[in-house]
């Protein structure tokens, strides 16, 4: 990042000139391409994830992508393959663990998840140490980097994203139905369990893609925050999905642009801009309901109820 700033000579107030200067560099063009792909997939998959209340699973999948990438670098394979391998294996493992509901079982489940996360991160450190300790790449893996994204990496990101989006488009309606009212969906013959496993796999792919921009520790910033902000603003499914994607794109583009002209990591900007959107959305809604300009149905859980009405009514 220091080299990027040095070579570009800093930002002026002429935004067009700044943009042209930035996009004259091939690695920045690639960064924006990758960022756009990642934002698209983070927005759509993240929207479903927040609706399904699986944000902790998404976080865990992203954390596991870190040892995947570190192990791939150690073995001399491409880090991209490592990200996907780590996340997809973790998604399969989580899908295999049966869901428990009783209180004591649940406390055990959280201990398992915590241990898995810590052990995954510890494996990542081990691989980095075995590789020979290249500290800059460590912070890059954890907190995001946009330097050195190759053409090939962009193609892989695009192919995986296309596959995930196609799969999601096919299963969107039944998945939505199963999410808002699992029992009714199961009674109508929707394969709820199969959909849940399939979605976890898609989530693994998405978490692996997002990790490559925001770093393994900050995927929350793109997967959760825009979706949560959009679901605060509107309860209409199509509108909030579109809004999520737009917020993701704006967050990524602005973060990449700002990070290019500063020395601080891109993950900081992504998480800060995403959090700002969320605070604005939540604050705006609180203000609106306080002023009484909106009907009272916009309570904290009214979103799910309204979405359920839409699904059943449709």
């Amino acid at each position: 990042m220091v080299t990027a700033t040095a070579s570009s000579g800093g930002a002026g107030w002429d935004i067009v000139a700044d943009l042209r200067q930035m996009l004259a560099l091939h690695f920045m063009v690639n960064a924006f391409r990758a960022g756009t792909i990642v934002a698209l997939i983070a927005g759509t998959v993240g929207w479903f994830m927040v609706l399904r209340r699986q944000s902790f699973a998404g976080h865990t999948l992203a954390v596991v992508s870190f040892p995947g990438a570190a192990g791939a670098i150690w073995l001399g394979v491409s880090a991209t393959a490592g990200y996907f391998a780590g996340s997809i294996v973790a998604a399969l493992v989580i899908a295999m663990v049966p869901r428990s509901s009783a209180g004591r079982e649940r406390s055990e489940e959280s201990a398992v998840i915590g241990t898995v996360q810590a052990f995954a991160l510890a494996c990542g450190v081990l691989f980095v140490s075995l590789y020979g300790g290249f500290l800059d790449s460590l912070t890059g893996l954890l907190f995001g980097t946009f330097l050195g994204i190759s053409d090939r990496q962009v193609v892989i990101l695009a192919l995986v994203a296309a596959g995930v989006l196609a799969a999601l488009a096919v299963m969107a309606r039944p998945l939505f139905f199963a999410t808002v009212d699992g029992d009714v969906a199961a009674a109508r013959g929707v394969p709820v369990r199969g959909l849940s496993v399939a979605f976890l796999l898609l989530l693994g792919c998405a978490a692996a893609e997002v990790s490559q921009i925001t770093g393994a520790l900050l995927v929350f910033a793109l997967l959760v925050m825009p979706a949560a902000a959009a679901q605060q603003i509107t309860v209409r499914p199509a509108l909030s999905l579109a809004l999520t994607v737009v917020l993701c794109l704006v967050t990524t583009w602005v973060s990449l642009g700002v990070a290019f002209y500063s020395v601080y990591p891109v993950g900081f900007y992504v998480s800060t801009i995403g959090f700002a959107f969320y605070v604005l959305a939540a604050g705006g809604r609180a203000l609106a309901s306080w002023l009484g300009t909106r009907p009272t149905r916009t309570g904290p859980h009214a979103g799910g109820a309204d979405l359920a009405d839409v699904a059943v009514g449709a």
Partner: protein
Amino acid sequence: MIATLDPFVGLAHMLDQPFLRSAFLAGTAIALAAGLVGYVVVLRGQVFTGDALSHVAFTGALAALAFGIDLRAGLYGACIVFAVLMAALGRRASADDTVIGSVFAWVLGLGALFLSIFTTSQSGTGAVGSDAGVNVLFGSILGLSSSQALSDVIVALGVAVVLVAIGRPLIFASLDESVAAARGVPVRALGYVFFILLGITAGVATQAVGALLLLGLVAAPAGASQRISSRPFVAIWLSAGIAVGSVWIGLTLAYLAPRVPPSFGIVGVATFAYLVSIAATSSRWWNRARARNRNRNRNQNRKQRSRPARTVPVAAEFRGEIRGA
């Protein structure tokens, strides 16, 4: 080399190194505190809080470094403040809560910023900056000076003593909050004290295994001990024992294989212990032994009074509190 020839000579040789003595001393005390506190964390189903605190520990420590104050001031300050906040939220704080998740993700993003500020401010003096960041994230137990080790021991032992002192009412309140409250146990106050202890533990464990891995030392031994024994006062000490054992074996592994980071050794051994406990307790032999034990208890209870024993064996521990006036 020597270690492979004769284990005792090797062990003595290992403990001759002053930095390893400090590591063993501090590691033992920290593991004791983490094992005891971790058991209650798992019992209350609040492992997620430990995860959140590990983010805060990272940001607090690096903020202190970036602003040029003592690392430990930032570490303990941030952990204790956020622990009190989480205590105030109480049981509303759950793992899939997007509000809390977003706040902590942003806190971690801030940590990345402080790391970057500190790294660039130190860039003239070599790799000190990134080293400090990596040490906070993944621990530097072998880099503790003897005075640091001593202060860690005092803090960790303090946590352990306070936890043992409030252990009985705390576990009672964690198992059944409403019954404990009805019996006059100060449930809310105990909650706050416990979260402050958890914050201090997170701070002190960050120095041993690092902010990102402290969850391994808090959750894995406790999860294992909870599987092995359902009697809280046995399990809590078992958890502490597993944690201390993990630190000892992990440090020895790191000493024998220098490329293995000590934090990986410690968390790896703790995870392995958890795996073994899962495998053992789901084996047929274990379940048969446990069923036999349960039948014997039930027969004894039947002799005493007609009511069969409660299926939750935990209630037996608090019979005094539950039945007594």
